[in-house]
C-alpha cells in the first residue's frame, strides 16, 4: 500500500512533527509511513485523512 502523506503534508505546510502531534503518534511513525515501511491501522488512516480533510482512499492507495 502506498500513500500521498508527504504530498498532503507539503500542501498543508505541516512538518512531520506537526502531523504526528495532530494524530497522536510519534514522528518516527510518520517517517515510516512516508517511506511506505509501515501500513497504518484503520484508525490512524482515518485520523490522517481527517487532518487533511480528504477521504482515506485519496491518501492511501494500492498499486
Amino acid at each position, binding site marked *: 500500500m502506498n500513500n500521498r502523506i508527504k504530498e498532503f503534508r507539503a500542501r498543508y505546510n505541516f512538518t512531520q512533527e506537526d502531523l504526528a502531534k495532530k494524530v497522536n*503518534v*510519534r*514522528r518516527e511513525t510518520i517517517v515510516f509511513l512516508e517511506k*511506505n*515501511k*509501515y*501500513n497504518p491501522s484503520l484508525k*490512524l488512516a482515518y485520523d490522517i485523512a481527517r487532518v487533511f480533510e480528504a477521504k482515506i482512499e485519496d491518501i492511501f492507495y494500492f498499486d
Partner: protein
Amino acid sequence: MKKTVVLFIIAALVLITTGLWIFSGHSEIKPAELISLGVIALVVVFALFVGYKRLTSVKKGEPAEDEMSKKVMHKTSSMSYYISLYWWLAIMYFSDKLKFETHTIIGAGILGMAVIFAVCWFVYNFRGERNE
C-alpha cells in the same frame, strides 16, 4: 511514562546486581566473565536507549508508545521467543559436549535471550512493519 520509569528501574537493578557480583568475593575477573559483563552492558545500554527514546517523545509532546512501536514490540517478542527456543536447544546440545558449570549455562541462556530480543527489536524497528 510509568513503563519508562520501570525500564530505568530495571536497568538500575541490573547494574546494582552486576556491581554486587563483581565486588563480592571476586579477586580477579575471568575471561568468560568478561564476556558476560560485556553482554550485560549491551543489554543495559539497549534499555537506556529505549527509555531515552520514550522520554524524548514525551518531551516533544508525542506519546511514549504508539501503534507502530506496540506492533514492533509485539513482533519482537514473538520472534525472539521463537529464536530463543533454538538458542536453548543449542545450549542443551553443547552442554553435553562441553563441560560447563550449571550457573554458566543458565547465565549464557538468559543473556543470550536478552541479546536475541535486542537484535530482533533493532531489526524490526529500523526495517519497519508492513502488513503484507
